[in-house]
Structure formats: structure tokens, C-alpha cells
């Protein structure tokens, strides 16, 4: 009890409000989403094959995601590939499209079609445009929306726990 009040005295915010850089938070979301998604078995070369998270462009989310390299998610090791172009998406299980890559968004969505790939982005209206998970900044916090049709096209199953926490779900196909 003394220990926890000491901690409270030094802790940065009342009510345990955490404050972090948005890139680190978005990277943390990516890793957490992976826990609630189920890829088809042919998306992996074997039982011990890694789960590959890709990032387009040179934004800070890529750097933040690299910190999770080798972590275990669903018994698979995480691999992070950065600065991935639309032609290099094969082998990726999730791809993060940074906000500053907006002009590549359509290209990436088109390349992702037909692959067992979950697309995640903080670009405005990403889920509407056909991306699987859109990150939305609401006030000072990050929320997310899920486009179920996009996940279905990729043959990826989205756990109901994830859907329950989503701000919005969309069934629209691009």
C-alpha cells in the first residue's frame, strides 16, 4: 500500500492517464490486433513460420514496431519489414500504411486484394475506402474501425472480441 501510494505520487497523471507518442500507440495496436486475427493456414509456410508485420514508407510507426521484433504472438515470432512498396506485399500478414503515404493508399489496397493480408492505417477514411482496420484519432485517444468485408476477402477471421471494442464496423466492399 505504501509502495502504490509512492508510485501514485510520482506517476505522471491522475486516474492513471497514460500519455505516449502516437506512433508507439499505433504500433502497440498493430501487435494487439494480431492477437485477435486468424489467418488461413496457407498464409504461413509452416507451424514455426513467423508472423510478418510490414510498414510502408519511413514513418515513425515502423521504428516503433521494430521494438516488437521476435515477440511471440499466437506462438509465432513477429518479424517487422519496413519501407515496403506495393510490389513487395507478398509474405506480409499485416501491413501498416502511414498517414503520409496517403497517395499510395489505393495502390496498396489494390495490391492487397487477393492476398491473406490485413491492412491497417491511420489515413482518414481508410476503412471506408476498403482497408481492414482504420485507426482514428478521437480527441487525444486512438480508436479503431473494422471493415469486415475487407477481412473476409483476405480470408482472415476477426475475433468477436476485437469487433466489440471497435468504434465502428463496416461491411462495405471497396
Amino acid at each position, binding site marked *: 500500500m505504501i509502495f*502504490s501510494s*509512492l*508510485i*501514485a505520487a*510520482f*506517476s*505522471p*497523471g*491522475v*486516474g*492513471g*492517464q*497514460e*500519455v*505516449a*507518442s*502516437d*506512433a*508507439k*500507440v499505433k*504500433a*502497440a*495496436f498493430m*501487435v*494487439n490486433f494480431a492477437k*485477435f486475427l486468424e489467418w488461413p493456414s496457407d498464409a504461413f509456410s509452416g507451424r514455426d513460420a513467423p508472423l510478418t508485420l510490414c510498414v510502408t514508407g*519511413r*514513418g*515513425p510507426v515502423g*521504428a516503433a514496431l521494430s*521494438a*516488437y521484433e521476435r*515477440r511471440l504472438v499466437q506462438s509465432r515470432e513477429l518479424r517487422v519489414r519496413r*519501407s515496403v512498396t*506495393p510490389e513487395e506485399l507478398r509474405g506480409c500478414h499485416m501491413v501498416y500504411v502511414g498517414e*503520409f503515404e*496517403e*497517395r*499510395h*493508399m*489505393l*495502390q496498396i*489496397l*489494390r495490391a492487397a486484394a487477393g492476398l491473406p493480408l490485413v491492412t491497417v492505417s491511420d489515413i*482518414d*477514411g481508410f476503412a*471506408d*475506402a*476498403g482497408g481492414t482496420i482504420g485507426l482514428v*484519432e478521437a*480527441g*487525444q*485517444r*486512438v*480508436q479503431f474501425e473494422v471493415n469486415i468485408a475487407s477481412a473476409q476477402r483476405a480470408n482472415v477471421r476477426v475475433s468477436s472480441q476485437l469487433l*466489440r*471494442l*471497435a*468504434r465502428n464496423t463496416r461491411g462495405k466492399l*471497396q
Partner: protein
Amino acid sequence: MSAQSSFPPRRAPTAAIVALAGMAAFTGAAGADRADLADLGLEALLAVEVTSVSRKAQHLQDTAAAVFVVTNEDIRRSGVTSIPEALRMVPGLQVARFSNDKWAVSARGAAGRFANKLLVMIDGRSVYSPLFSGVLWEAQDMLLEDVDRIEVIRGPGAALWGANAVNGIINVITKKARDTQGGLAQLGAGTEEKGFAALRYGGASGEDTQYRVYAKTYARDGSVDMSGASGGDDSRSLKSGFRLDRRISAGDRLMATGDVYEARSGEQWIVPRVTPPYGVLTPMTERNRGVNLLGRYERSFENGSAAALQAYIDSTHLAVSPIVTERRDTIDLDFQHQLQPASDHAVVWGLGYRESRDEVSTSGFIRLFPDRESFRLVSAFVHDDISLVRERLRLIIGAKFEHHSFTGGEPQPNLRLLWTPDALHTIWAAASRAVRIPSRADRESILDESVLPPFSAGNPSPLPVVVQSTFQPGVKRQSEKLDALELGYRAQFDPRLALDLAAFSNRYPRLRGLVTGPTTVQFAPVPHVLQQLYLDNGLSGRTTGFEAALDWRPLNRWRLQASYSLVHVKFDASSDFGRNTYAQFIRDSAPRSQYSLRSLLDLERGRQLDFWLRHVAGIARGDIPAYTELDARYGWRVSNSFELSLVGQSLLHSRHREYFEDLVHSPQLQVQRSFYVQAKWRF
């Protein structure tokens, strides 16, 4: 949707967050932004608050220019009530308030109220006046809550934005309509801000269309002159407008925005007269009215390219009765296309067309000719961003070509290099040329600057001397040119600490200046000596300087922002007395250095305490001493829908001088210590 409340879950996750945060505080390292963040779990992540330091820095990271972004949070927490006031925190910008509503904003040493080398845009619409090549800030009131950010690029942005962006560009960008949904009401009152009120409502029509409408008004008390008497510059303004955003399909967007306004402010001019008392203090009223409408259509294509088409009309009416009135209508069309013709080339090219017609009427000591004029500006630009070494070295080559009715064609080339040795550092260098097209007033204007009484300092003769700046008939005015070299360094040491440095050397080979003209004796209305000064492009000089900006978040709840600027102005000596005197005027109009230090502290239970300390060196012309001032703000977010704030401005001295009216003679006015209270409701 069960977990979407605005309060964090109050059970186990809270304890975990507090414990982790406590540990982080003990280790003194960068808080809880570590790999542990993923361990919080989804529910807790949804409650984490994100900071903006790293995001803002990322946006700038790839820019090979001296950029500074004033964010919405910077605006809200600085207590400012106008755009120029917010610009005080930008390194490289000299901002001086010389009257209640009137500001002199310039960049990199090119000073003055009508500092004519800065391009200012609001959502893509230029608010730069071609009448005198400057911005009438008193007509640009905005609902600051709905401003997303102000991007300031110091240095020539000519290749992208064209002529008149010589020393920099200020781009005010409002929030998208989907980020301003619902109602907002703002009410405030204070000692100088007598009263202000704003109302905004944002709504949506289906999933794809959002809009907002707003109305805003203020009344401001005038400043005081050197004796403490009222400066006669009370002002008021009323403005209303809208914004509409519509997503037509996955890659198609439409945006429309428009405003209508009326603003009024008082001034006092010392009107020169050839008979005693040679200068008469005359109260004037300046009225600004206007309406504008802008539409922009953006389309992304599947091959990764994108295009945008923008059109706007802007109609303004300025009246400083009874001396000057100007009615102006402008239509502007702009097209841009971005494409990737090869894997290492990102090309942007565009075309622009602007037509502006005016009707001016002048009398007395200011005369503009002709009374009706229109000009056409046609421009094209191209810009290639080449990846020389992937992820490491980029070369940007650009050029803009313009043809203007007044001065013909002007090529403006631009070369930039950007090196990113790693994700944390960027070094950039630029060489560019920019051009400023002469304004109406630069071309055909006659201005009686002042009258020197007989037997006074500067005039030992028995006749009064009228000093008049005028144009030389038959001599064509040229545009001003700038050749600039710049160097910059940007580092994001960690998400909490970012540093931005820039240095520049600007050479102006043909600046607008004055040269001694004929001295004649005139007999009407009474005998006097007329000393004319001709406007010409014979001034040349160089400005060099350095700017630094630091953004540091030492604690999660405490953010510091500091900026510092230095500028040195040197003009080439001339044998002409008139030219040298004018050169000295310009050189002595900019403060040599300035700094700004802001502290933003989040206290418990939604309270905020913010300070802003700034210092500006003295201005030799006008004998303005250096000053240091402090603004403070105490904010209280009572609930998600109600916020109060108490702001004190210029707290260190009851009054101080910052600048003077430099177009016509006016009494020197002072900025006063002031307070105001503001309440904001969201509904």
C-alpha cells in the same frame, strides 16, 4: 458498443497503468512509451492519450525547407485571439503589433506593416493584397478553434507557390468538417478584448458529407499613445462562413469553403499639409468588407498518382475614408498533378491562372493611378523529387514560370538536397530564386511622405519642404528578385525531444527603394519646395541569419517549446543620399534577434497552466526599445463539454511599444497589459 465511454476502465488495467507509469518515472526514462505499451491490452490502449510532438516532427522530417508548424494546441494554449499573434512563436518571423488590430508581420529581416515578401494563404486562398503587397490582418479574423494548423515556411517557396512567396509562406489550414462536428459556443470578455463571441455548428449528411457553419464577432478596445490617451483605434469585426467536405468515392474528395465579413477599426493619421501646422492629426475609419468562395476537388488514381483542381473567387472592399478606397475582385484557378513516372521520381506539376480587377479612388496626399486596373497572372511549375540513394538522399529540382501583366515573364528555379543519415536526423540544403511582383503602390503612386516646416531640423529654408515619393514616368518598374542559399538540420532525438536549425543567406539585387529626384519650387496652393524621391529598383543588399526551434517534453504533462532567431541586414552603399537613407530605414526596421519560450503544464483534474515569455530586440528606426513580455493562461476543462480560461497578456509592463505605422505618419501607440476570460461550450 460497450467499451466506448470517455472514462478509462477503472479496474485492473488502471492499476497496471499506474504501476508501469510509476516504474517509468523512477527509471527517469521516457515514460511508458516503450515496448511495454503493447502489454497494456486493447482496452487500455484505447484510453491512452497521444502526444503531438513526434507527429508534427514527422510531418516536417521530409521537408527540405525551414518549416515550423503552429498546431491547434499551440494556438489554444497560448491565449492568442488572432492569427498574427500566434505567429510570434515562429522562429524567423518578426511580428509586431503597432495598433489594436494592426500588425507588421515579416520574415527574415524584410520588415514593415506592408512587408511585401511573404505569401499568406488561408485554405489555399491567398490573402495577400496586390494593392500594396501585404496583408491586412485586421480583415483576417478566424475562429481559431477550427484552425488545424498554421504551416510557416521561411525562405523562397517559389517553385511551388510562386511569385510573392519570396521570404516565406504562411499557410493557415482549417480542420476538416468531420473534425468539427457538433456545436461550439465561445464567449469572452476582458480589458482590451471588450467582448467576443463565436458560434459554430457542424453536421453530417450521410456517411460521406460533413459541413460546418460559423459566425463570430469581436469588439476590441483601442491602444494608448505615448501620453496614455486613447489611440482612437477601437475595432470590431463580424464574420461568418462555412466549410463542406464530401467523399465522392474511395479516391475522390470535394471541399468547399467560404466567408463573408465586415471589420472596422479606427486610426489616426497625421495628414501632411503645406500650410501650418504642416501636419494635422486626423481620425480615420478603416472598413474592410469581403466575401469569398473556394472549391477544391481531389482525386487519387489507382496507379498512385493524384490530381487536384481548385478555384476561388474573392471580392474585397477597403475604405479608409476619405483618403483611399479599393474594390477588388479576384478569380483564381489552380491545377496540380502528382505522379511517379519512374520508381525514384516523384513529380508534381501544375498550372495556375489568376485574374484580378480593381477600382481605386484616392485623394489628398495619396494618389494611385490609374483608377481602374486589372492584371492577369499565368503560371506553371514542375518539381521532381528524386531518390538518389533510397531512404537516404533526395534531390529536389523545381522551377516555376510566371507571366504577369505588369512585368512579363519570370523564371524561378529551385534546387534542394535532403540527406537522412538515419531515422533521427535530416540535413537539407537549398539554392533558389524568387521574385516579387511590384504592387500597385510600387508602380504608379504618389505619396506625400511628410512636410518639413520652415526653419526646422532638416529644413533651414524659409519655405516648407514637401517630401514626396513618386514614380518616374516612362520608367518601367521591375519585380524584386531574391537569390537565396539555405542550410538546415533537424533531429528527433526521441519522441520527446526535437530540434530544428536553419541558416540562410539572401541576396536582393534589385530591391524597391527610393532615389533622390528633382527639387523644385512650387507655388500652389502656397509657395513651397517640392523634394521628390523616385521609386526605383536600385537598392541591393543581403540578409543573413539563423533560426532555431526546440520542442521538449521533459514530463508527460509538461511541454516546453523554445525558438530563437537572428538576422543581419546589410545594404550596398550608394552615392545617392535618398537611396542610402531609405536603405537605412529598411535595415533599421527589423529587430536583430528575438526569442520565445513557452511552457505548457497539465495540472490535475483538467487544469492547465501555460506561460509564454518572449523577447524582441530593439528597432532603431522609430526608437523602439527592446522588450521582454510574458503571457499567461490558466485553463480549466470542467467537463468534456465546458471549458473556462483566464488569460493575461503583456504582463510584465503596463504598456510597451512594438512598432509604428510605417506607411503614413501616425501617433506612436503602445500595447497594454490586458486580461480576458473565455468560456467554451460544446453541445
